[in-house]
């Protein structure tokens, strides 16, 4: 069983601020809101584009131009694996002496997985290792670009008309004087009977003479003609050979192979072309409520590190089910959980029941309302069109526990994480706190084993409680204006202890 199996991940779940239950590895901790955030409470943004094969960074404008594809790398059209360039020697007559043969290197593309080569479709071997591979030209590309031009001019003209219509209410004489849109010259041309000029000028005749007049005078340099229709009778029916010929499955393309080249969609395997490799993105994640970055990767595509990494694993105590005695319904069984404190500051852990957690939350909400903080619709500082929001699901968490748990009454001290502790002989420094021998089973630097009791009532034993701990914001300590603040954070936790007899 790999450590990333879904079963193992689902054993200990934390409640995110939106109400969903997630394992600690899928959560972020926003240190400004002092709250957990999951994938849904976070806005995902594209940080940079890069090619997964050559690891080349590409600015987003260039990426959009190249349709998010790498210029140098190709994908095998048959299986989708990356193509590698291989060289072979060919003897050609040397240019100096036609009778002598010299060896020259020629390159071809080959797939290491399915052994497809560029020679399979008849592409000639290239003399240059990269960059010389011929591209397929779309036979309709000219028609599409002229159509695009045509519609673009119409769109521009409509935009100009809309702008000029806004000024119709104002004094006309002012417009004549300023000649802001070249109105006077166009009006003069119309009166004298000359054809109106292309594009911008022609758009304004609408402003003067009313809508719709200028449109017939297109005056475009290229006249767009609609495509010539083909009569249905000319198009051939399905060839009857399809019904009589034996099927040659090795030469037919599969749907995936066809859709990889949407423009051509070849039916035969000897017509598939290598496609440029898709770019991948690096994404950064932002808390939806306070707009601070929670996760920001490094710009270099070969680096897997992060500039900002506020994962919950590094800030929230992690609970691991350490040992569970065999459980029987109706009987009290003991189980031990291991709590790990990942931060650099000590914390006092208190285990509270979910009912207490709900009470404290309700009191906090009431206190906030009394202070008069209304729910303001905040505007995002980054993107003014977006309203930061976190949707909270109706809380179904309070009733899913299937077993009663007896919680320890005492508070437990969690020592800070000390990297040098493994070389230090000597016990764990408890900073003056006294351990309850019934509750604390063992200690090891920043880890504690805590014993609890459970009384299962159903076969699937699910236990729910909340942990309350201190979070010290050491990052602000560098900024001398703000002092180090310690906040108490309470997080509901759900443990799946297994099956009871």
């Amino acid at each position, binding site marked *: 069983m790999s450590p990333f199996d879904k079963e193992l991940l689902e054993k200990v779940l934390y409640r995110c601020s939106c109400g969903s239950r997630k394992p600690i590895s899928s959560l972020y901790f926003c240190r400004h809101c002092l709250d957990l955030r999951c994938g849904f409470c976070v806005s995902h943004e594209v940080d940079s584009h890069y090619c997964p094969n050559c690891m080349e960074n590409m600015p987003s404008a260039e990426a959009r131009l190249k349709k998010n594809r790498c210029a140098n790398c190709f994908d095998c059209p048959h299986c989708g694996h990356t193509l590698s360039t291989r060289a072979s020697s060919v003897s050609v007559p040397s240019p100096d002496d036609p009778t002598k043969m010299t060896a020259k290197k020629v390159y071809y593309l080959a797939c290491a*997985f399915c*052994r497809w080569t560029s*020679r399979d479709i008849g592409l000639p071997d290239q003399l240059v290792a990269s960059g010389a591979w011929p591209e397929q030209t779309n036979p309709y590309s000219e028609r599409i670009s002229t159509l695009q031009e045509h519609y673009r001019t119409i769109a521009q003209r409509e935009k100009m008309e809309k702008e000029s219509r806004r000024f119709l209410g104002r004094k006309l004489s002012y417009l004549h004087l300023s000649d802001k849109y070249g109105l006077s010259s166009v009006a003069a041309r119309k009166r004298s009977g000359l054809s109106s000029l292309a594009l911008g000028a022609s758009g304004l005749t609408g402003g003067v003479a009313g809508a719709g007049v200028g449109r017939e005078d297109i005056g475009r340099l290229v006249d767009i003609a609609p495509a010539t229709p083909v009569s249905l009778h000319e198009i051939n029916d399905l060839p009857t050979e399809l019904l009589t010929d034996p099927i040659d499955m090795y*030469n037919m393309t599969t749907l995936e192979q066809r859709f990889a080249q949407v423009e051509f969609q070849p039916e035969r395997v000897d017509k598939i072309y290598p496609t440029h490799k898709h770019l991948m993105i690096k994404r950064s994640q932002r808390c939806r409520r306070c707009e601070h970055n929670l996760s920001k990767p490094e710009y270099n595509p070969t680096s897997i590190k992060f500039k900002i990494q506020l994962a919950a694993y590094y800030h929230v105590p992690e609970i691991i089910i350490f040992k569970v005695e065999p459980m029987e319904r109706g009987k009290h069984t003991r189980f031990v959980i291991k709590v790990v404190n990942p931060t650099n500051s000590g914390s006092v852990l208190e285990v509270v029941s979910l009912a207490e957690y709900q009470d404290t939350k309700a009191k906090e909400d009431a206190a906030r309302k009394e202070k008069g903080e209304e729910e303001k619709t905040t505007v995002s500082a980054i993107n003014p069109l977006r309203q930061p929001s976190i949707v909270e699901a109706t809380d179904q968490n309070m009733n899913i526990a299937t077993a009663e748990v007896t919680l320890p009454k005492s508070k437990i001290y969690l020592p800070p994480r000390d990297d040098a502790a493994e070389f230090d002989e000597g016990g764990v420094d408890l900073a003056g706190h006294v351990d309850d021998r019934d509750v604390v089973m063992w200690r090891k630097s920043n880890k504690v084993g805590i014993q609890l009791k459970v009384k299962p009532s159903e076969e699937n034993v699910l236990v729910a409680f909340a942990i309350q701990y201190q979070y010290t914001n050491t990052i602000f300590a560098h900024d001398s204006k703000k002092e180090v603040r310690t906040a108490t954070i309470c997080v509901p936790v759900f443990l799946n202890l297994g099956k009871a007899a």
Partner: protein
Amino acid sequence: MSSSAKSNIKIAPGAIVCNECELKGDISIGAKTVIHPKAKIVAESGPIIIGENNLIEEQCEILNIDPNPENSHNESVMIIGSNNIFEVGSEVNCLKIGDNNIVEAKSFLGRHSNLSNGCIIGAGCKITTEETMEENIVVYGGDCKRRKGLDKPVPQHLQIDFLCKVLPNYHHLKKSTKKPTA
């Protein structure tokens, strides 16, 4: 009753057969064939005839073992052609292999499948179907997808020449038994 394991190994001159490989039964190896150490060729239920220019790499198993020894009274002869490559860890049980095939690393060929010429069995693929592969077929992927190649794979002469020169420097070789023709 399986045939007795009396070893009768004929190695043609020019073949490079390392001492550490395991050869059992009636085996005949052609010229310029390279057999790496830790290869295993077991001819239990019949002789194995290996052609020329083959490359049999480490931990490769070429087995002529009949799973039901009581049923067959005849000896089944396993014939392997020339210019084949058996990569590391491959297991070959089939009786007929033609020329220019490549059996990639950790692949498995069952007793009833046969390879013709130019086939490539991809890494990790298990072929147990009762068939003779068409020529130039490439089998690849975890689910053994198939593809028809244009022509046979390139024979690895350079590699075999290199091994013929280098292997004797580091390994003891089995002596060839056939006398070279005068």
